[in-house]
């Protein structure tokens, strides 16, 4: 089979590009520690969230010196808790599940993004630095009022975080 010289060159360049792309994605996964959403959590009963230790009371909890966990429930058509309040300069791990249909959870303007599937728990971790307010959207169609489904993520100063319970 005769392959033109330019074609061989193009083929080589194409394969080089492909390997470069695979390499860069691999580096991103392995190097800077950009972790993927994976099946790290067990199945959960979507109809029985009220009996679940984590999701019966959606909340933010401190689990380490600078490490906070949030248990978030998505349902038609809101997120609980909203706002999710975490202190500045900390590491945050979110556990998100759904009571009913498939939802999305994205912190707008960031890459904190995950599918929320009933029966599954999605785990994402990220670092927050300065105080600020972020919007959270449901980006997976979930029913007729999908476009109203939003939440908030507040990064507050350490003192505000400690005092937050008093206003609840």
């Amino acid at each position, binding site marked *: *089979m005769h*392959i*033109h010289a330019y*074609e061989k060159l*193009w*083929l080589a360049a*194409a*394969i080089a*590009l*492909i390997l470069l*792309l*695979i390499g*860069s*994605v*691999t580096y*991103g*996964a392995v190097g800077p520690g950009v*972790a*993927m*959403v*994976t*099946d790290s959590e067990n*199945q959960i*009963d*979507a*109809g*029985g969230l009220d009996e679940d230790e984590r999701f019966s009371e959606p909340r933010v909890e401190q689990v380490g010196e600078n490490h906070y966990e949030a248990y978030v429930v998505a349902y*038609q058509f809101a997120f609980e808790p909203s706002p999710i309040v975490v202190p500045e300069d900390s590491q945050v791990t979110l556990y998100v599940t759904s009571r*009913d*249909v*498939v939802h999305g959870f*994205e912190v*707008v*303007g*960031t*890459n904190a*993004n*995950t*599918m*929320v*599937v*009933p*029966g*599954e728990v*999605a*785990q994402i971790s990220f670092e927050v630095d300065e105080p600020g*307010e*972020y*919007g959270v*959207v449901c*980006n997976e*169609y*979930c*029913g007729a*009022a*999908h*476009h109203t489904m*939003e*939440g*908030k993520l507040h990064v507050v100063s350490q003192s505000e975080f400690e005092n937050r319970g008093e206003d609840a």
Partner: protein
Amino acid sequence: MSEALSAEQTFADKFPNEAKVVRAAFLGSFFALFLGAVFGIIQTLHRTGIFRGFIASTDYYTVLTAHGVFMVLSFTIFFLVGLFTWAVTRSLDRPLVNIKITWTWYGLMAAGMTMAGFSILAGFTNAIPVSADVLYTFYAPLQAHPLYYAGLTVFVVGTWLAGADWFRTYLAWKRDNRGERIPLQTFMVLTTMIMWYIATTAIAASILLFLLPWSLGLIPSVNPTLTRTLFWFFGHPVVYFWLMPAYLLWYTVLPSIAGGRLFSDPLARVVFVLFVLLSTPVGIHHQYLDPGIAEGFKFISMTNTMFLLLPSLLTAFTVVASVEYGARRRGGTGLFGWLRALPWRDPAFTGMMLAGLMFAAGGFSGMVNAGMNINYMIHNTLWVPGHFHLTVGTAVGLTFMAATYWLWPQITNKPIYSLQIGLFQVVLWFIGMALMSNAMHAQGMLGVPRRTAEPEYSGFDYPAAFGGFEELNLQIAIGGTLLFLSTVLFLGNIVLTMGNPKVSGIAESIRPALSGPTDAPQVLDNLRVWVSIALVLVVLAYALPLAAIISDGGLLGPGVGTYPVWLDGTVHALAETATTAGWMLVDSLTVLGAHVADTLSGVAP
């Protein structure tokens, strides 16, 4: 020279029965395009906030389901079956084995799409207790009326029968032509259909084993992750089902329109074989953010997906080389000057070239989508529709429209009503799509979600980059309006063409490739080898993930609900529905009969 041309027969002259089928398929395709375009303009004006008076926001999702299904299942696939019927008949130079079977599969496709279409459109009114507001991806536990799932099944069965029809015709040809290489167009049809058969097994399983019984109330629940995975097993190769007819046109028709010849037949075969092998074991790249699937499986899918770039990059080379050959044959000279010698006034040529150009851009945004970690920035944002309007919307859609300008006269003996309007239309599509898609990509980077009726939220504002959210909305609306206008011009041109009288002497032929089929290694034609390898790759990519999903959550899911419940109960409810439907049918027939009687009595002297 003109005597030779007038003695030459068009496809409609040589194969009138097949030409009728192709016409019917194209008309079905354009009807779907029309409906899809109407819904498209409603969507674009609603979502950008320009005009929200057509529908309530809660009905937006009915519009979106209709737009998706009619555009990417009906418009594309009806065009494909018409095109492939033409290609097989023409390249084998013989009629199909049994034209009755051909009309049967066409009828099945039409019936299936009507069922599904009805179930979607009935969602606009509460008077009919049927709807399918589940979007083209129909993720459980959102549920559609059983008519939706049943309609899609009938439609797909129709396509299966179509493939069998073409395979049968090929085998009949093979008996009379032992030892000859498979003609290129037939090779492309057969390989595409092999890929389709592999791909649709999963969606058929998902619908027949889970979604349809679930919507009929026969099983209590489904496993959302399992049905999602089965959908995307199908959902990625379906884009190649859309793309490969466009490639068939770029490889076999475009070079001749450009005045040239296909650069290399063997490499075209290699490209199609690569698609058979690689299209299916990549579906999990649509599920990078799914919590029920392990990272390792996502990584494997990512590497497979990156290799899928190869056949498209090879196509870019071959298509440009073939067109350049044509340009130089027409007298073009210089490093880039040959571009000027091309038939840019021909809408078929220009449309396909602009579609190919836009596809390159779509390919780049696709590389971002495939990048497992960078995907997190744009998953489920408006970037994704920006990407696929470049690929299926333009590379496929615009190529189909452009090809129609060339092909319609061949199957009807009628010249196009206005080639100037055709040229204007394809360029207008390019401009409109550039505006809309560019702005969609930018909004996606701001985090604006897709599939949403009102992307403004009360709690926050989007980042103010790329001109800002409102300005980008305006660009999307203008782009979408231009696209709608372009579609109207296209459809109007075809309708007016149908009114033209038949003429003779408009036959166009396709020149043989520069490097022909005999230059291709024999193994390329050995379809059994490629099917086997494809199946092995699919098993490697999907056996473990599916096993993991089923063992974790169970076949029927970890106890998930149903939203909404269409038919609760079992055979009793089924019987009730059948009775209600039966009476509705009787009522409508009565009304119809009365109307006909009135008309007849009014006309009778």
